[in-house]
């Protein structure tokens, strides 16, 4: 069995860092706060690796099948016998993988931040927020109860909000953090209702019991659930759709993706940690966690998951080709890659060979975390050097930033899916799964992976090649020293080598072993497309020319639409401002002002009128008052004597 103390330490060390730096940061750790937090994170990451080793190689499997264990669980809120909210740890392949990803990326970002954020005021607060985020994310992945997931889900949202708005004196950052919070919160409403529907159907909030009850054909719960429906769709499907809406909001799936590009207002290491590698895959993780329910009980909803993922992937890839802010390109690329994971889940079935998509999604999640964190941290180094986010201001940086250049190139090759880098293996598995189950999605994915290679190398050539960038500012600080270079190198090793992990042996939909092999003939087409994308990017961006402008002009309308992100933000503004604020809002305001306020005012007016009428009785004449008194006495006396006896 897993060691409870170790798992508890993994989760609680970041929390301790948060509390320590949050409470005493200013007074005690003004200088060394970052070091303290990083040390705690290091211990947590080492323990996570140890746990993963123990799980996968020592106690996790019986007879070649990985099973879930719940080393610790307490009942937190008991509603009635059978339905309770528990707090516990759930250890299974995907949660262990996520433990490693979250702690490792978080450690890298902590180390990197020591250099990147140097000289920043409020440094202890920054590290405290990082700790809070890591704690929430770890709590989310280890949750044994769907409600515990929800609690940590919201905590993750809060810490993301705090970190996006870290530069709170910048209006754009304030707007971005509000946008991120409101959009994801709106999606979380769906998640909450989905939880309620699931718990109503299954009569439990516990993951393993819930999955067991909802996937067993002919169980009482399934029979009961089948009797409820709304608008011709069964209650279970509604629950699954609503839970997926929550996941789609957090994972920036179309059309709830609008917050992610704006979230790049946060410090760049934060973007690497939260908005590229860990938090945004929470939606994928949620669908994976409930995968048996999606695959067995509601296969129709899984189709929706697949299509939403595919549409998000291609839309984001097209937009990424036109953006000029390097962090925004990376943000759209993140959205596109998460789209890959989503549709990989969508095209998967439960169990055995048919569950390839599930394995592929988790594999891609793992490799993507490596190379996307690397891309963001590399972009951070570039921004650190250039003091600008705009591609147009950069160029020829390969001489000034050699290590960043090499690691960035590795990450680009990995995300483009060029063998033998990590992205190749996971993407091939996804494409294979799509090819086997849904040909339409497969072709969308092919186009998208070509586009991915194109926009990544557009970014690469714009930054590191072309007209040399002239550093106008007086101070030159190179690559930011050891602490900023070390994470790049470590992540580059991960991005280059992670693909060789035989992921199918460890993570499958039903826990049993899945052999995956590289099919050379199948791989030719996607790799060829990726190479084509790279060559087009080389032709257009390696040297400065008017080729990009000419290409943009030749596809005019599409380029303009993509540059304006397909006007989705404008659609949102139209819906909120014109329809919600002007239509429903004005109506509600009118109702409030005239009906609600009117009733209150009417009471007041009546009171005033009546008191005007009777105030003459207050004449100031003592004998008048005495007369009223006498009249009262006489009336009472009459009543007592003759009426009531």
């Amino acid at each position, binding site marked *: 069995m897993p060691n409870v103390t170790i798992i508890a330490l993994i989760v609680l060390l970041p929390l301790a860092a948060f509390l320590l730096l949050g409470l005493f940061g200013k007074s005690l750790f003004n200088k060394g706060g970052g070091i303290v937090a990083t040390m705690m994170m290091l211990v947590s990451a080492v323990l996570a690796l140890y746990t993963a080793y123990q799980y996968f190689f020592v106690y996790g499997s019986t007879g070649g099948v990985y099973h879930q264990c719940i080393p610790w669980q307490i009942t937190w809120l008991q509603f009635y016998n059978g339905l309770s909210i528990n707090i516990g740890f759930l250890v299974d392949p995907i949660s262990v993988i996520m433990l490693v990803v979250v702690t490792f990326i978080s450690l890298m970002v902590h180390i990197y931040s020591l250099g990147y954020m140097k000289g920043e005021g409020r440094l202890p607060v920054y590290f405290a927020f990082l700790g809070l985020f890591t704690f929430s994310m770890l709590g989310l992945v280890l949750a044994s109860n769907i409600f515990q997931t929800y609690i940590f889900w919201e905590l993750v949202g809060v810490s993301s909000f705090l970190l996006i708005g870290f530069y709170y004196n910048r209006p754009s950052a304030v707007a971005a953090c509000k946008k991120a919070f409101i959009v994801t919160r709106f999606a979380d409403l769906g998640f909450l209702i989905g939880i309620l529907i699931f718990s109503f159907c299954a009569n439990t909030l516990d993951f393993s019991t819930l999955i067991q009850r909802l996937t067993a054909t002919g169980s009482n719960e399934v029979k009961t659930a089948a009797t409820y429906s709304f608008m011709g769709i069964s209650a279970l499907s509604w629950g699954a759709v609503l839970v997926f809406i929550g996941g789609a909001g957090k994972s920036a799936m179309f059309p709830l993706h609008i917050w992610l590009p704006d979230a790049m207002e946060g410090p760049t290491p934060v973007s690497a940690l939260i908005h590229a590698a860990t938090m945004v895959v929470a939606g994928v993780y949620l669908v994976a966690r409930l995968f048996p329910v999606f695959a067995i009980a509601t296969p129709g909803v899984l189709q929706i998951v697949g299509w939403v993922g595919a549409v998000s992937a291609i839309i984001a890839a097209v937009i990424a080709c036109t953006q000029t802010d390097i962090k925004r390109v990376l943000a759209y690329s993140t959205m596109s890659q998460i789209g890959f994971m989503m549709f990989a889940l969508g095209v998967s079935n439960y169990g055995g060979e048919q569950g390839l998509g599930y394995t592929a999604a988790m594999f891609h999640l793992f490799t993507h975390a490596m190379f996307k964190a690397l891309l963001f941290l590399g972009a951070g180094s570039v921004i650190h050097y250039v003091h600008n986010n705009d591609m147009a201001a950069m160029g020829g940086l390969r001489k000034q930033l050699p290590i960043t250049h090499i690691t960035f190139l590795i990450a680009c090759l990995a995300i483009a899916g060029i063998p033998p880098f990590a992205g190749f293996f996971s993407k091939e598995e996804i494409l294979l799964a799509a090819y086997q189950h849904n040909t339409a999605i497969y072709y969308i994915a092919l186009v998208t992976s070509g586009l991915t290679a194109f926009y990544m190398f557009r970014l690469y050539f714009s930054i590191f090649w072309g007209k040399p960038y002239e550093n106008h500012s007086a101070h030159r600080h190179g690559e930011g020293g050891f602490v900023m270079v070390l994470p790049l190198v470590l992540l580059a090793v991960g991005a280059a080598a992670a693909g060789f992990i035989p992921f199918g042996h460890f993570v499958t939909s039903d826990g049993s072993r899945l052999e995956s092999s590289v099919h050379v003939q199948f791989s030719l087409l996607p790799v060829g497309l990726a190479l084509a994308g790279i060559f087009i990017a080389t032709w257009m961006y390696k040297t400065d020319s008017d080729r990009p402008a000419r290409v943009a002009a030749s596809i005019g309308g599409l380029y303009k639409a993509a540059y304006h992100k397909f006007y989705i933000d404008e659609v949102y503004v139209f819906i909120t401002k014109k329809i919600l604020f002007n239509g429903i809002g004005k109506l509600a305001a009118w109702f409030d002002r005239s009906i609600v306020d009117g009733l209150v005012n009417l009471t007041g007016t009546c009171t005033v009128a009546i008191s005007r009428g009777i*105030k*003459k009785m*207050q*004449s*100031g*004449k*003592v*004998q008048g008052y*005495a*007369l009223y008194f*006498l009249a009262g006495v006489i009336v009472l006396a009459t009543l007592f004597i003759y009426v009531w006896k």
Partner: protein
Amino acid sequence: MMQPGLYHILFISTALFFMGVYGFFTRRNLVTMLMSLELVLNSVNLNFIAFNKYVWPGKMDGLFFALFIIAIAAAEAAVAIAIIINLYRNHKSIDVNDAEDLKY
């Protein structure tokens, strides 16, 4: 000579009470109103004494009530006259119709 009975005394007491009330409502002079009030109080006193003597001759309750009312009436008269004097200082008048500053 006929001994006065309970009814005689109650008759006098009632007459005294209504004389007091009449005076209280018709006089405008505050001192006179106060005197009328004393009549009302004393009619109550008479009632107490009479009932005590004719209904429960062995008890003393009525007697003590009467004594208390006399004491309170004295205190009340002192307070009332003090108020009247202050009123006179402010208004140069003790006509009750002039003292209507506290109307609405």
